[in-house]
């Protein structure tokens, strides 16, 4: 057999290599070095972290490729970057500069309210956000090779990440106990491709890696998501909006590995300095929430 590139196996395979790890948002090459030195498995190159996107308002777009290229030069770990939902030309640009993963992200302002990117058309793999199993499997149907629960980015409030992870994992548990004749109705109800629903039922998990994201700010938050059952975590504003980013980043990495060891968690949680200033999602106006972007 001749060499084959960009197969679905190598796309989802990179996400498998990231499991048990922490992917950190960074806005400069210096941030990226701090993240790599702390043990991040990958970085997400951005112009502004989600908390700043919230604060600034306006239209949030793909980051200037120049910034992303500088970050790619600064570290040896994989570099991800965000494209707007449905903005396949931003994705083409990110592929052209050679990023390792594209996040089709609700954190940016959506470019298309009806259609997500057709991700099978790309050589570079995609990660997409979800709030439930139907949304996850629709994205996989379009070609996503990795899923993350959306949470509510830029808040430092883990409640939505928990809600979305519990929803997805709960739906998978329900699906596993359904008799075969009820699977089609289940697919119709959650609006997901039947074949992917069947595959999920057989595997007892999603067919691709599933990370948690949106609101994770402490080592305990990361370990909470891991114990609930995700494969790894994204930390956005939680690190570089805190008092001591290097220390907090290293602590979150350790907490993600030793998520089941309260002794280690207690030790790494000590003396981390100021966490990011959070915003409670419960009292946030609906118009400010971003998890509802995309479908």
């Amino acid at each position, binding site marked *: 057999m001749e060499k084959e590139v960009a197969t679905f196996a190598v796309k989802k395979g990179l996400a498998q290599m990231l499991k048990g790890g922490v992917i950190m948002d960074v806005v400069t090459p210096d941030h990226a070095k701090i993240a790599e030195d702390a043990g991040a498995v990958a970085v997400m190159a951005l112009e502004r972290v989600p908390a700043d996107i919230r604060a600034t308002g306006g239209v949030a777009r793909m980051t200037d490729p120049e910034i992303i290229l500088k970050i790619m030069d600064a570290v040896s770990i994989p570099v991800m970057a965000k494209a707007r939902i449905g903005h396949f030309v931003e994705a083409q640009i990110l592929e052209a500069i*050679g990023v390792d993963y594209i996040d089709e992200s609700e954190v940016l302002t959506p470019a298309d309210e009806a259609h997500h990117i057709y991700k099978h058309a790309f050589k570079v793999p995609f990660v997409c956000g979800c709030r439930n199993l139907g949304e996850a499997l629709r994205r996989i149907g379009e070609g996503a090779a990795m899923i993350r629960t959306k949470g509510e980015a830029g808040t430092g409030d883990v409640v939505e990440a928990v809600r979305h992870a519990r929803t997805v994992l709960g739906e998978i548990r329900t699906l596993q106990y359904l008799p075969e004749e009820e699977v089609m109705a289940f697919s119709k109800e959650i609006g997901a491709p039947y074949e992917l629903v069947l595959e999920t039922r057989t595997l007892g998990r999603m067919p691709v890696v599933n990370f948690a994201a949106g609101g994770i700010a402490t080592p305990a938050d990361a370990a909470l998501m891991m114990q609930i059952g995700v494969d790894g975590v994204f930390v956005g504003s939680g690190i570089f909006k805190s008092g001591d980013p290097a220390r907090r980043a290293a602590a979150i990495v350790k907490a993600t590995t030793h998520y089941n060891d309260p002794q280690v968690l207690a030790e790494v949680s000590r003396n981390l300095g100021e966490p990011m200033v959070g915003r409670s999602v419960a009292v946030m106006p609906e118009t400010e929430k971003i998890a509802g972007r995309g479908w």
Partner: protein
Amino acid sequence: MEIGVLALQGDFAEHQAMLEKLGAAVRQVRQPGQLAGLAGLVIPGGESTTMGKLAAAYDLIEPLREFGRMHAVWGTCAGAIFLSRDAGNEQPLLDLMDISVIRNAFGRQVDSFEIDLDVPELKSVDPSGKPYHAVFIRAPLIDSVSGSAKVLASLPDGRIVAARQGHLLATVFHPELTPDDRFHRYFLELVKSRSDH
């Protein structure tokens, strides 16, 4: 006979599932004490810098070296880097095998690939000698082997992708990501022969 999988980070669950399917008992290793009594160890794919840092932070480097001097150890991708003596980068390495590696030798993720390899050694577990379908993800290359290390597999252009040195095994691709279990069986045989010593 219990096999350990280093569970600091990476696709250790995939290795565990494959080994358990072959009837092995498997233990996840995150702390030095968890190495006691194991007959062999798999170091999975993942990010080698992350794995090295976590191993250093939890005082695993020396215990892993000691374990590897006595017992069978297999590293895949990041695990192969970790076993090497030189990776051309400032990062903690176990320096157990006489191999040097080049990280991300094929480029970035868009250059990751699948290919069939000829691995004559696998005839010891399956006489058919059929090609081995290998998955390479941001893979390193084995730049050179020295001492008693020997080459097990190469790409068509001759570049080295698998090596063995006595009871130590390094593959820069991912047998845990394909249904072909020959490499896992090969490793279990290696563990067995080492334990019989």
